[in-house]
């Protein structure tokens, strides 16, 4: 099995087109010929950037819990609500389903995301070889679910916009909401910066142009390139042309 990087190829992050780069011009940032997106074999500084955003996210999560995300005023009595307080209010109202959704979005998901991204980053840095598949699944889940934490901020914003009934009741957003929004955005950026392809790289420098070993694989759903192909720099265009010629008939 060969990765694109092992063949000196790069896939465009936007349109997916595969491009072959010439080695001697690696100093200029290459761009996709078709959609002009910047091409990188692996996201640059992936681990460092991901750690940085993750740290920022954890730091922002502390004030998000200490400061109120909103202040409820009913008949003149102001009461600050923290994230966890909002959950208890819902729980006491016996709307358990929504309470659980809020708890998941505001506590479980951010904390799990901190743990998951740190684990993935450490596993890349320590070059774990086991359970790559499961770790990729974990990455996929983190990436998908992270943005849903933003629901808390939107709930606060909607409540604050709606409940402005003069002297009867009033809800105002608190500083905690900004901190929580920052947590969500920072952890999203952390997941975006993390390059999942690093989970599969054998060596740190594997994306230069090492020759990969060949594996037998029979249960392929998509037709994978097996060791029959020679991935010299020269044979690649020929392979490509031959294939194009075949289907052109």
């Amino acid at each position: 099995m060969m990765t694109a990087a092992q063949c000196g190829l790069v896939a465009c992050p936007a349109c997916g087109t595969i491009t072959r780069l010439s080695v001697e011009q690696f100093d200029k940032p290459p761009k996709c010929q078709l959609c002009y997106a910047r091409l990188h074999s692996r996201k640059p500084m992936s681990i460092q950037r991901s750690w940085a955003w993750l740290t920022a996210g954890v730091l922002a999560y502390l004030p998000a819990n200490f400061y109120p995300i909103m202040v409820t005023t009913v008949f003149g009595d102001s009461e600050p609500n923290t994230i966890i307080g909002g959950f208890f209010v819902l729980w006491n109202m016996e709307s358990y389903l929504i309470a659980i959704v809020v708890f998941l979005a505001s506590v479980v998901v951010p904390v799990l995301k901190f743990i998951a991204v740190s684990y993935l980053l450490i596993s890349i840095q320590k070059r774990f070889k086991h359970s790559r598949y499961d770790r990729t699944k974990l990455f996929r889940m983190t990436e998908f679910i992270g943005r849903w934490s933003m629901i808390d901020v939107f709930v606060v914003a909607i409540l604050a916009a709606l409940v402005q009934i003069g002297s009867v009741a009033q809800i105002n957003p608190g500083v905690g909401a900004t901190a929580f929004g920052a947590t969500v955005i920072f952890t999203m950026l952390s997941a975006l910066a993390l390059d999942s392809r690093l989970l599969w790289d054998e060596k740190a420098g594997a994306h230069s142009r090492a020759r990969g070993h060949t594996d037998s694989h029979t249960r392929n759903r998509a037709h994978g390139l097996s060791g029959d192909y020679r991935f010299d720099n020269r044979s690649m265009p020929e392979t490509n042309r031959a294939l194009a010629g075949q289907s052109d008939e």
Partner: protein
Amino acid sequence: MTRSSTDPVLASEPRHPGKPAPGEARHHRPVVETVLSSLVACHECDLLHEKVEIEIGATARCMRCNAELYTHKSYSIDKALAVGMAAFIMFVIANCFPFLKISVSGNTQSMSIVSAVFALSGDGLWLLALVSFGFILLFPLIRMAGLLYILIPLRCNKRLPGIELVFRTTVYLSPWSMMEIYLFGAIVALVKLAAMANIELGYSFWAFALLNMLTAASLQMIDKHSLWEIILQARHRERLQSAEAEASAGAGSNAGVSAR
């Protein structure tokens, strides 16, 4: 002969430093050597696969990490355009009417979608308000407009500048467009208030819910790969036409010369 969408020739634009394709010379960048269109790399683990024909509705997955490589969608530009335009109209409607109404002991208060942003900025949370404005309104709007900007000219066989930029923008903005999360946020807020006050759903709420469904449908119809494929096919057609036009023009002038 109609070419299938996975035909590598259609998608292929192999270029070499010495001989750029006709009409495309200004796009040529010397850094990149060749475009290999019969291959696809897994975006999650970088494993190379050879593109194969798959039936309509099927999805090709990475054999190593099971990530989606590409799907063969039976898209039609007309349908996608119809859904995209309907979504655009719904977006306008959703922003013209009240979203939610609350009434407590005779006092009524209503909010529109954008009031949530103003509620944040009104209490000094400028940064959060700005970001929320992007997530709820601006980024979804840019994505919708971008889709129309790409599809409408294709439908009319015209070419507008900056298709590549628009395409990339719509791709990169996709995780930051959070209309569906806002909708669920509204539902959570409803449940929170239901016990204390009388809540009414405005027209805008229904329009917004419909907008979310339409957006999901349009994503189901045309994902970024098929959108890009449509663009490539249009370019291919364009190139064929220009080549034909050139040929016939050449023949015409020759005929003119010989007649004279």
